[in-house]
């Protein structure tokens, strides 16, 4: 089953890291990515730039509105993701717990909808 592992971090609560710590964190990400690539579970994944670079689009009454940044009240924001293909939820949860940023923020585990089941999910 495929799962999206959404990495949420909160810049205000994440401790400011020294250069060494930052390097260590990057190194941990590199190791993790290498592991799940070697096991064949990695489908994809990217890190995102900060929310200050984001734009949010909404279309209301046919008019597109663009706002700078995401919702103002959002404290935790999406920092990156992995798309994995694993045996079951237990394995997805196990991988989520190994993502380095889980120590500061949180990782949401979302099953990818099988489009053949779309009728089910809308019930």
């Amino acid at each position, binding site marked *: 089953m495929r799962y999206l592992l959404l990495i949420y971090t909160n810049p205000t609560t994440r401790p400011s890291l020294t250069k060494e710590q930052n390097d260590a964190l990057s190194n941990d990400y590199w190791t993790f990515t290498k592991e799940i690539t070697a096991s064949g579970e990695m489908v994809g994944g990217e890190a995102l730039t900060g929310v200050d670079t984001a734009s949010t689009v909404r279309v209301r009454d046919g008019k597109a509105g663009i706002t700078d940044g995401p919702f103002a009240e959002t404290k935790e924001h999406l920092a990156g993701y992995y798309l994995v293909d694993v045996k*079951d*939820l237990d394995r*997805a949860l196990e991988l989520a717990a190994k993502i380095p940023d889980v120590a500061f923020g949180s990782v949401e585990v979302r*099953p990818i909808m099988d489009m*053949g089941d779309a009728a089910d999910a809308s019930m």
Partner: protein
Amino acid sequence: MSERTRDPEPVEQLLREHAPRALGALVRRYRNFEYTEDAMQEAVLSAWQTWSASGVPGNPTGWLVTAARHRLFDRLQHEDRRLDKELAAWSPPPTTSALDDELTPLDDDELRLIFMCCHPALADEPRVALTLRAVGGLTTTEIAQAFLVPEATMAQRIVRAKRKIVAAGISFDLPAEESLLRRTEAVLQVVYLIFNAGYANTRGSDVVRVDLCHEAIRLGRLLHALLPADSTVAALLALMLLHDGRRIGRADAAGRLVPLAAQDRALWNREQIAEGVRLVEQVLIDGPVGRYQIQAAIAAVHAEAATAAETDWPQILALYGILEQLMPGPLVALNRAVPVAEVNGPQAGLDILDALTTHPDAATLGHRLPAARGHLLERLGRLEEAAAAYRKAAALCPSVAELRYLETRLHAVDADLRGAE
């Protein structure tokens, strides 16, 4: 032996025993928990009618598996949409009622079912409801009654939980070795939640048919039979047996709570207590020391005292010392104040409680903290403060039985105060 009985009670018991086994075999074979569970519910209804009217079949589990499997395929054929990939894989539908080897129930099917229903990715309420239905064999109506919620609410809860199991990919496989402890802990948590829901709702006059304490004990026995080497499972079973064995003494004829010291010990279920004590002795010899082991040991020491005065308080105090290290927090600290007061005097107990009043989580203790303070203040002869504490406790108390008891204490203290004037 094609017919065994026409008595409806044993039919119901048989169904509750065999339906979870049959469901386990079906889920292992066909994987889709939502569909198989629906099909099993229908099979159980039809078994109830058929077996009550014309007798119990020789192989009740096999009968249920066959009936549910037919319903499953009926549903698939009538559903106007693409077959689920997994379900399509086991077409064509069965043409005979003979079971293939894969549908013969295995010993660990029920265990897998329990792990699945108690998965920590589900919230407590759905886990509890689903476990009682799929593993405990209760109907949605019975579960709704036991938890005092509308049937529609309970049905919705169960449907959502079943969908999440399927959609989130919670598997029917036994947990991997490295996560077995955590997953077992999650199962025990569900069983203990069920027990505590029953224990908190103990009301002598109730006509609720399902006793959640007994359901929890039944699940505990099943788990203990499936995981005989797990001493934490044995400890939780012991703890429940010991608490339940003393339950009948907890309320008087007027529905008023009777504190342990004043209970009529002749009312206790001695047989059940003896079983609990035996289990405790075994787990304390064999196994690691965890919260359930220590809580059960404390309950055993209480239960073994022939009278309240003969309670081995120093031993209970020592056990609470261990428990506080295992599960630090204000509730255990509050409970420890009781043996402290017995061993070192009421003032020593009160010192602990007074320190707790400024604990950041003091509010989570609710009425328990002022009620316990009231007791010790009363024993110290500080009657006005005791009355104030009892009043505060009564204002916060959610349980009618306990409220009645607190009012009795308050009247007694007030009478003493007037007598002293």
